[in-house]
């Protein structure tokens, strides 16, 4: 019986342009020898494509995240190649899994140790709302202790959903005003979480 293997009998040399993605230029003034745009847009573009995630994985969502980082789904394609395991270097806190009430101060401390600008992604039902653990010992969503930018639903979410969540974070990063972190609105948000 023939093995279900196919050989590429007409191989083509790959074109480098197929393997590299280019982002569109942000809108601006363009002419011969110059291009002018807003500083904010360039910063957003640079930040968006070089997010360093900090995985805070406590349970099965962390396993899905490992798949997301693996070669099959490969979060690195979206500019998040480099996971940092120190909060001081990272931009994106990814909370994946059940956070018990006893763990809550640690999550908050990790968030506080991150430098601005920082984003938070809550992955899965437990991190978003406590999930099935509607119980005296489980934090009912990490948004009780830190502000969250993007929630990924699912129990656990598939790697595609994680990619989608990261892309939505990228959209936020891309479109964020450089002044947002100094705005009274943002300070009021942090104050509502007792963060100075």
């Amino acid at each position, binding site marked *: 019986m023939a093995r279900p293997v196919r050989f590429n009998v007409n191989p083509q040399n790959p074109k480098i342009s197929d393997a590299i993605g280019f982002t569109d230029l942000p809108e601006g003034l363009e002419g011969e020898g110059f291009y002018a745009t807003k500083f904010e847009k360039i910063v957003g573009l640079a930040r968006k494509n070089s997010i360093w995630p900090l995985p805070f994985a406590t349970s099965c969502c962390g396993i899905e995240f490992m798949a997301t980082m693996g070669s099959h789904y490969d979060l690195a394609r979206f500019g998040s190649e480099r996971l940092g395991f120190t909060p001081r270097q990272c931009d994106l806190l990814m909370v994946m899994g059940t956070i018990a*009430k*006893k763990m809550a101060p640690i999550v908050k401390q990790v968030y506080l140790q991150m430098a601005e600008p920082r984003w938070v992604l809550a992955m899965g039902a437990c991190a978003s*709302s*406590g999930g099935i653990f*509607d119980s*005296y*010992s489980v934090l*009912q*969503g990490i948004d009780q202790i830190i502000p969250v930018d993007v929630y990924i639903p699912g129990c656990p979410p598939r790697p595609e959903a994680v990619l989608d969540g990261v892309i939505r974070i990228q959209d936020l990063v891309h479109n964020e005003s450089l002044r947002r972190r100094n705005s009274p609105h943002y300070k009021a948000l942090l104050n509502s979480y007792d963060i100075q």
Partner: protein
Amino acid sequence: MEITTQYIQDRLLEKFGKEISFLLDPYEMLNFETPKDKNLKVLQFLFDDEILRFRFLIDICAVHYPDQKGRELAVVYHLHNLQDNVRIRYKIFTPIENPDIFSATGLYQSANWMERETYDFFGINFVGHPNLKRIQNVDEMDYFPMRKEYPMEDQTRIDKDDEMFGRGSSVL
């Protein structure tokens, strides 16, 4: 010599007489009860006796029976004789208003964390325990979550729809 359930019963009756009462023995595992102030004497006897040799404390746990007036909380000791591979279960009952029980930490080192856990979840006050504070729940918790007057569910959240969790008004 083989240690039978009957033999342990006879020895306990001989030593403690009427203070011992025997409960049902599910799966032929001896299960008995004494007044709560006798717990250390009974445990010491079972530990020291040259034949019984119950020197391994497997577990301490508690049960809340809200319907039994004056005997609401049960503390259960699971003991094991490692040489002869015999297990027994020993229960004491205490009223919920006065959950003071002598600590077994002097006899078994392993009782230390087990009694802290039992305190944490049921609020049993182990008199003589060296460090009786919460071990598993957050320190700020102000109730004993496994007692049945408290609901299991977290009460801080208002956006969870009870209908979705099978305990809404339409569920019988």
